[in-house]
């Protein structure tokens, strides 16, 4: 950087810092400035369109193995409040932003995001034209990438990217799961959020949660609706779980390729039908896999806080938080049951077909019977949620716990309680009526 340029930045909140380089698998390179820890990291690149909630993104274990671009250009504005973190430590590989704020402003902020990243050893780059980068990823699809503060040679770094391990076929969940079981109850709710969130309901249900990289806010969400949760490692045998005779089993979110998480979905297959089951994100995929369904990799995934999802049971649209790169291929669940699909025999490729007709179709699964499609993404017509008609189980691909993102789908935690209570119409909850549940003003 020129002497004048350095002098111009010297008195700002951001004096000149060391250079960093971002390179994609296809050779595209962006030069920028380091704004986290020094180092060199590799991962699959993806972008998140949430306007706020960067800390929740950075600490979401589902981002294990990924380099995340934030599309909103100025990140770190309100600093870091540790209680907003979704895990003890970030699991993502690297962070890409347009502009990192070093002088945050918020009454809850404890440290600046850049300092947090440095402390946590997360490599991050700023000064990148993130919009250009996002457009590139959108057009070319998800791919491997690297951020480095060590190797600033585009060609040499690109060669390393091409030699790095892709995330397809890799079990990333095992790396972010807990080593030992632990309990999570209302006592574990963060005191620092009490200004905004209502106290938990009295505990009524005992739930075992498979941890494939569970977000803290999911456990909080379960505790708030009255669940005493025992969190268990990703590959805990079903027999052990059933032996504890819980009221319900929860399957958590988690990173990467669902096909690789055999250790979980094999156990899930043994749990379905024996105990009420609720899954979120990877948990949803585990249920689908247990039912023998197929997954597909999305071109650049869904990562953000503004995806409209139609609830086929109520006709309402929920604005949802999303974070996944793989998706259920609904037809692979089984053939349609025309009697419960308004006479339609053939699967529709674009599931918005069902939204337009106001029908929640049922597919017949060879292992578990009827599987009703309950939720559809309005942006691209992909499957977002299913409910089994013959066994007590349901799941959604998106994130009702939000954090970050809109909380329209909070009702799903209540639905899980209603499922454990034995209601057949457990999903029949009006979003509008549920909207203020759990908040404090």
């Amino acid at each position, binding site marked *: 950087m020129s002497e004048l340029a350095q002098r111009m930045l010297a008195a700002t909140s951001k004096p000149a810092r060391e250079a960093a380089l971002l390179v994609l698998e296809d050779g595209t390179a962006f030069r920028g400035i380091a704004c986290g820890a020094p180092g060199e990291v590799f991962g699959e690149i993806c972008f998140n369109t949430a306007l706020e909630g960067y800390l929740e993104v950075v600490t979401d274990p589902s981002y294990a193995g990924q380099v995340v671009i934030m599309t909103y250009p100025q990140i770190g504005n309100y600093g870091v409040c540790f209680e907003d973190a979704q895990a003890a430590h970030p699991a993502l590989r690297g962070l890409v932003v347009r502009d990192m704020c070093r002088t945050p*402003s*918020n*009454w809850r902020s404890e440290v600046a995001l850049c300092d947090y990243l440095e402390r946590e050893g997360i490599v991050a780059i700023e000064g990148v034209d993130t919009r250009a980068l996002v457009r590139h990823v959108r057009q070319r699809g998800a791919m491997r990438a690297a951020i480095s503060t060590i190797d600033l040679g585009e060609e040499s770094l690109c060669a390393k990217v091409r030699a790095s391990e892709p995330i397809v076929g890799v079990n990333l969940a095992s790396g972010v799961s807990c080593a030992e079981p632990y309990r999570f109850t209302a006592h574990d709710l963060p005191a620092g959020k009490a200004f905004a969130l209502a106290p938990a309901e009295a505990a009524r249900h005992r739930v075992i949660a498979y941890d494939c990289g569970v977000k803290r806010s999911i456990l909080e969400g379960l505790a708030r609706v009255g669940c005493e949760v025992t969190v268990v490692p990703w590959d805990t045998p079903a027999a052990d779980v059933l032996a504890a005779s819980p009221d319900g089993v929860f399957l958590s979110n988690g990173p990467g390729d669902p096909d690789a998480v055999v250790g979980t979905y094999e156990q899930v297959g043994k749990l379905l039908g024996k105990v009420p089951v609720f899954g979120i994100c990877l948990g949803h995929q585990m249920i689908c896999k247990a039912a023998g369904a197929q997954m597909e990799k999305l071109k650049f995934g869904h990562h953000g806080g503004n995806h409209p999802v139609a609830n086929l049971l109520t006709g309402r649209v929920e604005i949802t938080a999303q974070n996944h790169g793989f998706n259920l291929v609904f037809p692979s669940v089984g053939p349609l049951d025309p009697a419960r699909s308004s006479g339609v025999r053939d699967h529709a490729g674009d599931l918005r077909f069902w939204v337009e007709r106001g029908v929640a179709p049922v597919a017949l699964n060879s292992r578990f019977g009827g599987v009703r499609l309950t939720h559809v993404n*309005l942006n691209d017509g992909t499957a977002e949620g299913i409910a089994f008609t013959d066994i007590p189980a349901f799941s959604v691909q998106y994130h009702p716990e939000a954090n970050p993102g809109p909380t329209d789908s909070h009702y799903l935690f209540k639905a899980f309680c209603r499922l454990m209570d034995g209601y057949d119409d457990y999903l029949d909850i009006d979003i509008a009526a549920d909207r203020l549940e759990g908040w404090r003003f």
Partner: protein
Amino acid sequence: MPKRTDIQTILVIGSGPIVIGQACEFDYSGAQACKVLREEGYRVVLVNSNPATIMTDPGLADRTYIEPVTAEFVEKVIRAERPDALLATLGGQTALNVAVELATSGVLDELGVEMIGCDLPVIQRGEDRKLFNECMAELGIETARAGYAYSVEDARGIVAEIGYPVVLRPSFTLGGAGGGIAHDDDELTLIVSQGIELSPVGEVLVEESVEGWKEFEMEVVRDGAGNGIVVCSIENLDPMGVHTGDSITVAPAQTLSDVEYQRMRAASLAVLEKVGVQTGGSNVQFAVNPADGRMVIIEMNPRVSRSSALASKATGFPIAKVAARLAVGYTLPEIVNDMTGVTSACFEPSIDYCVVKAPRFAFEKFKDSDDTLSTRMKAVGEVMAIGRTFEEALGKALRSLENGRAGLGVDGHVRASETKEGYRPLLARPTCDRIVYVGCALRCGWTPAEIHAATGIDRFFLDRMADIVAVQEALRGVRVDDIDAEAFLIAKRHGLSDAQIAFLTHSSEIVVRARRKALGVVPAFKAVDTCAAEFESPSAYYYKTYDAGESELVAASSKPKALILGAGPNRIGQGIEFDYCCVHACYALSEAGYETIMVNCNPETVSTDYDTSDRLYFEPLTYEDVMDIIDAERPDGVVATLGGQTPLKLARALEEAGVPIMGTAADAIDLAEDRDRFADLLDGLGVAYPPAGDASTLDEAVRVADHIGFPLLVRPSYVLGGRGMAIVYDARQLRRYMGEAAKISPDHPVYLDKFLESAVEGDLDCVCDGDDVYVGGILEHIEEAGIHSGDSACCIPPFSLSDALVAKLREIAWRLALAIGVRGLLNIQFAIKDQQIYVIEANPRASRTVPFVSKATGVPLAKVAARVMAGEQLADMGLPLDSRDLGYCAVKEAVMPFGRFPGSDVVLGPEMKSTGEVMGIAPTFPAAYAKTQLAISYELPRSGGVFISVADRDKRSIAAIARDFSRLGFDVLCTGGTAKTLSASGVPCQKVNKVSEGQPNVVDLIGDGKIVLMINTPYGHGSRGDGYELRLAAVRHGVTYATTIAAAQALAAAMETVHDDGLGVVALQDLPQWE
């Protein structure tokens, strides 16, 4: 749900004239609604009194009524058109109020009209603080602690419980009029007593002060199926205490963590449901305590608002368009997002840039008025700027304001204080300049923490501004040639303009630009697409940024390209009229086969609707920003003559840079604007003009005065809207003026023109193609010479001019237009005294009166002009004969903002003060004039006291007017001198005390409501004393008043018409329309 088929005809109510708090954002929303509803196959009937709007173009509705937006006239329209439904949520508070009146009076029920969007109980729950607070209590959402006062005593009682300071809000007033903050008993007494009078229900809310808290707005849209989305969050830079319309605001919210933001979102959606908004847009405002996150809801508006226009422009999500579709039964998921073309409108836009809105004020127009910003809105316009960072957007916003600034300071303006401490009072008091003082204070050594303590502005914004200032200071004194590419990029990314860099480096903007481009530091253009690039978007709505990795401009088509320069922020003297002209040019050039490119920075307007042009650049109208766009677009022609002074000022510099200007050449503009060249031209043509001279010193001015004789019209050179213009009657006044004028414009001389006392003034708007001239209209002013043409009422056709004079005027227009070399519009201002025509000025550009003339005659002049610029000949257009007899009268009247500026005199003069205009169409002049008065004041008194007090020179003409009022059944009251005149003329009148003659005097009578109409003509400039007090009292108490004899005369005739109840309604479609 599909659209409703049980309704066929929908009545849309507009917002009436542009006033402070309700500007052209409602033209934008209303025009969108009309377009959408017609696309959906409904028959649209529109009522709006504002002729300068796009929505009142006869092509936008099936039936367009330019009539007063009052229950009385809307009822007449309903009876004539029998609509099935009424959509009132897109016309601001005015439309909502009329709808409420029609609903409560039973008219809607009687005539079977359904309110769509929201119904009466919803409006009441949204607007009645008591009902609203009850709703919030049921939801458990906190509101500020408060109570209702119906007297000053009530208010004191409430304060005893909640303590000072308190916020005072009169119920049901427009844009918070009459509100304020009281810190002590005196302030409480004053504001509460005024507020009770202003409130139609005599009620003032006394509320716990949340002054200094952070302020946020959420723009929410809901559909009939119960789906709700937040389109945009907005954070105010100025903390609570400053009206959001007067605040600099930023989108999206910058300093809320996810849990805080989501709590606000959930509350916003719940509020809409609780209040019962069935469909459409609403905004919800919150205050957040920066110390502990405590959140309090301030208010919600169950309708489209100024901030929803802003949110639409900020995100690319067209709220009004969507709201109109929702009102007729569609649900959000059924509506396609225009910006992607594939995804639905049921989502929450994600933006990947920062938006800053900055208000534009006009305090210089209202001397003696307090310029402290408070909860009562005072801004007359606003700008919006988009950048990738707050720094970039703030710099753009501040240089968009057209107030001589080039960004955050360092632009040649004098320092407000030389000492650090000197900034303390300037920071503590919120004013229009405070943002600049923050920059100055940072340069003077104030830390962001200290400024935060003094202003309450969030540290986030102050730290960003401190960075900007640090970058600026590091550049100070550097030679331009020593700035390298990296340094340039840093400066640009911190929002510095070329002009600021030139100032810091003692260079010129042109040199800085050349150096910058030589180094390859050029901006990129990025698209606004609602989705942060997640989906492919055909959007051609762009902003400029120095994130120069990639520019997203689409490849050019084979069509020629026309770039239209917009009018910038609304301000007094340059309002919606110019936006109207730009939009029309866009339509006309598009029809003529051009690809149209719009450049503007005003978020309220139709021109900045991405639907209006083929490509939209939301950018400041400065040389730098416009040239950057021209460099990228390479247009075949630039239209600079339709957006008022703003683009006109750029025309010469653009032409010098080799940019092809469409229409009238820069030299021709100069010929008309340069007084000496223009005088030579008029001499050559044998056209008379008032004797004139110029002076740089008082001595020179006195010499000119000796030569020409008093009275004189004096003004600084190069002014807009008559800024700093005055009439002086003697040497004493001239001396005073010269003293003040020097402050206004030190580098320019003062012009002195012979003032033609009691001459008749007029405007003529015409189009010239180089061979032919088409006279669009000749407007006769109601007020005599000396009142700014923008403030004067006027009539088409000229009702008192002889055919011979009119023919002569037309002939002068022909010769002048051809001699100047006009290719497009020409506005001529003239005065007639003793049958002699004097040309006062000629402006080779669109004038303020173009929309009015177009509506009055059915010939859209701006479109005609644009076609001429595109090379068409007038003779080929098949225009109707311009000398035809219209067979009806159209009157335009100005709307004044005095109610917003307590303390400022209401007398009209050569300096323009009006914010907007209304139009009345009727078979006769008095009837048309009556409609304009009704459109402004909503009703005309039919009985009561008329107070008359006139200057000596008016005493001879007042008797006949007083006699008319007496005959109409009014009691005539007057003070000594006028009473003597009237008694001598045999007009019955009652003498009352002047203020100086003890009580009860006339001000007491006004206070008691005994006076319904006041005629008070002042003598000379800046007249003070009794008259001033009287006029202030009249404004405060909402008494109809006239300050000129001509207006009094017109008012008397109008009242006679109203008395006879002869006002019908007329649709534009029933009058002859060209095209």
